[in-house]
């Protein structure tokens, strides 16, 4: 969700170096992930085993993998930087921007994904709206996913160059070869195991920063006081009280954008329809596990700000030069100079180096490497599934054997990784591509959520309604993006004011409101076209739509086993946290 070009602040310098003990820790990680690939290869012989991990994961494994697939290093470093730049407002992307959507996925949407026995989100669209919607979603998802994998790869190489001075080519090829090897061997199963390991590693490597940081600051209350004193603003330490107007907070956004743009559309679009994360839950071994996995994921997600947002806030409060004891002032990547040598995005490495000596530093670097590799593996495994099932199997070779599709899955993993490497080198020579790739990804998320939501909850939605609604939403999103990103500065300001409904809106608000409008357009077009075309019979919609489907019992016998009970607990904690940090 962060502008990836922001990582380009890095210059030809090196923050630290690894000692032998750090290298041992890093090499141990590589040895284990490659071993896992070889170990699970024997259990990935059928297409269901390769693409859906045999549908035998417990709720805990699927839930951890679900949240971990999103917890890449770009997220960690980018949002730590945003926490420095915007203060505690960045937490919205972890709480209202995730928790309600994850609970909605588990309780409302997962039964339909699961009992339809679909293998992918485009696969569900095919069952519900026919080939048009599936083709559009599969092509856009496959294309974007493989590009994102390349962007992730380049970002990892760049970070390793800056922190450790490693050669970019070395990082790209070693990272890509390792990921290609273990995903090709073990498919989704291998990716999921590594995501669970990565989640543990990230906490093991990053949790010391907030612990030691809060000790240094003298506790949370003292940290807040120091931030207010250093920034001369209360906007950095309150989540909601400064969202009344765009001008009252450092992000330049208001509560409408956060609640409806982020909380209701972007978040629901990402967490409920992005196949990269939904694929993890589809691997659950029964309906109850599939419903519980996002609920457990939500519980873990709520804790992530501790290792992402708190380090950014700590930098605002306590990051001082060890010699002069002056506060170190981080700046935007375009403003880095001799007086301000560090940018926002260097917050996490700077805090890591501040508290972690040899050994712990290796653990932190390993966590970052694991996050990058896991991000690549997630993208490549999702690409391989969508390519094999929804493009190759749907349009090129419909009647191949199961063994053939597994072989295609393995080959598409390798070829996908090679395309990713090409993307990485392309980005190296034209950095702005990173922002374009990420913008492209955002074009499809909000409209796709409109299409899937209406598909699951409204029996009257027709095939033409679904397809044209998705097309209209996506096209309008692209149109708005072009409208606000090209032209003179005066035109861009006008365009932003039109999209976000205020002259005080900042670019962050643009994304929220663009998502909101494209979703509304998708829903309106779907509804209008559906009323003009013939709906499918109720029998055809069995297992796909609310009201036409008898949802099977999930087998929970006590309240402790019911996903809805735990979803309520998570929801209550979510509300309490927002009130505490109001």
């Amino acid at each position, binding site marked *: 969700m962060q502008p990836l070009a922001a990582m380009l602040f890095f210059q030809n310098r090196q923050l630290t170096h690894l000692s032998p*003990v750090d290298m*041992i*820790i890093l090499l*141990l*990680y590589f040895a*284990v992930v490659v071993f*896992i690939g070889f*170990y*699970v290869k*024997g*259990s*990935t012989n059928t297409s269901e*085993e390769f693409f859906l*991990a*045999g549908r*035998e*994961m*417990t709720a805990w*494994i699927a839930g951890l993998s679900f949240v971990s697939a999103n917890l890449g290093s770009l997220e960690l470093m980018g949002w730590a930087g945003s926490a420095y730049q915007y203060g505690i407002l960045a937490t919205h992307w972890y709480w209202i921007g995730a928790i309600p959507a994850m609970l909605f996925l588990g309780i409302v949407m997962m039964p339909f994904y699961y009992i339809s026995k679909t293998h992918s989100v485009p696969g569900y669209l095919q069952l519900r709206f026919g080939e048009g919607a599936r083709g559009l979603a599969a092509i856009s998802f496959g294309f974007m996913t493989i590009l994102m994998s390349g962007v992730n790869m380049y970002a990892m190489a760049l970070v390793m160059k800056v922190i450790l001075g490693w050669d970019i080519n070395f990082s790209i090829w070693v990272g890509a070869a390792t990921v290609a090897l273990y995903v090709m061997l073990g498919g989704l*199963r291998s990716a*999921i*195991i590594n995501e*669970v*390991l990565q989640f*543990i*590693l990230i906490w*093991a490597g990053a949790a*010391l920063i907030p612990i*030691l940081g809060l*000790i*240094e600051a003298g506790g949370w209350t003292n940290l807040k006081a120091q931030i207010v004193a250093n920034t001369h603003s209360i906007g950095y330490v309150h989540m909601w009280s400064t969202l009344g107007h765009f001008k009252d907070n450092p992000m330049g956004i208001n509560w409408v954008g956060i609640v409806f743009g982020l909380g209701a559309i972007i978040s629901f679009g990402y967490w409920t329809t992005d196949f990269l994360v939904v694929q993890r839950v589809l691997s659950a*071994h029964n309906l109850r596990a599939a419903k519980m996995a996002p609920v457990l994921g939500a519980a873990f997600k709520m804790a992530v700000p501790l290792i992402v947002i708190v380090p950014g806030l700590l930098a605002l409060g306590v990051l001082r030069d*060890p010699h002069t004891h002056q506060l170190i002032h981080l700046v935007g990547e375009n403003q880095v100079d001799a007086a301000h040598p560090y940018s926002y995005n260097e917050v996490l490495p700077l805090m890591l*180096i*501040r*508290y*972690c*000596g*040899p*050994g*712990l530093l290796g*653990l932190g670097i390993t966590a970052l490497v694991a996050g990058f590799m896991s991000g690549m593996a997630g993208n490549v495994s999702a690409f391989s599934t969508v390519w094999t099932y929804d493009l190759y199997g749907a349009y090129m070779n419909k009647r191949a054997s199961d063994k053939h599709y597994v072989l295609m899955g393995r080959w598409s993993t390798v070829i996908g990784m090679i395309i990713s490497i090409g993307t990485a080198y392309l980005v190296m020579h034209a950095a702005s591509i990173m922002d374009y790739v990420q913008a492209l990804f955002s074009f499809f998320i909000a409209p796709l959520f409109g299409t899937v939501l209406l598909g699951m909850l409204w029996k009257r939605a027709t095939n033409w309604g679904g397809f044209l609604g998705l097309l209209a939403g996506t096209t309008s999103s692209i149109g708005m993006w072009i409208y606000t990103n090209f032209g003179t500065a005066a035109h861009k300001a006008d365009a932003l004011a039109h999209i976000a409904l205020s002259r005080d809106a900042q670019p962050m608000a643009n994304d929220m409101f663009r998502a909101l409008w494209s979703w509304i357009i998708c829903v309106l077009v779907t509804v209008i076209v559906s009323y003009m075309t013939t709906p499918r019979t109720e029998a055809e919609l069995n297992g796909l739509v609310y009201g036409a489907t008898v949802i099977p019992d999930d087998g929970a016998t006590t309240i402790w086993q019911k996903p809805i009970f735990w979803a309520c607990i998570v929801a209550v904690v979510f509300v309490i946290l927002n009130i505490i940090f109001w």
Partner: protein
Amino acid sequence: MAQGTGRGESLSIWFFVGIMTLSYGIVLFPYGAWEWFGNHEPGTVLNNLHPTFWWGLLLLAFGGFYTFRYRPRPGDKDVA
């Protein structure tokens, strides 16, 4: 039970979690002890709290528990 690694395998995903964190504890704990008791503390902030030693001990305990709890045992094979 070999959770997560597939039918027919005997090593659970949690065993891998255990063995990985245990390995890190085995590396960090003695290294932290050497730093602390040998006066080789790095020049990091709050190094007087000996974070490498204590974090290594925590990983050792966490990893040791998971490795023991999910160790492969006879009869685990063929259980998903």
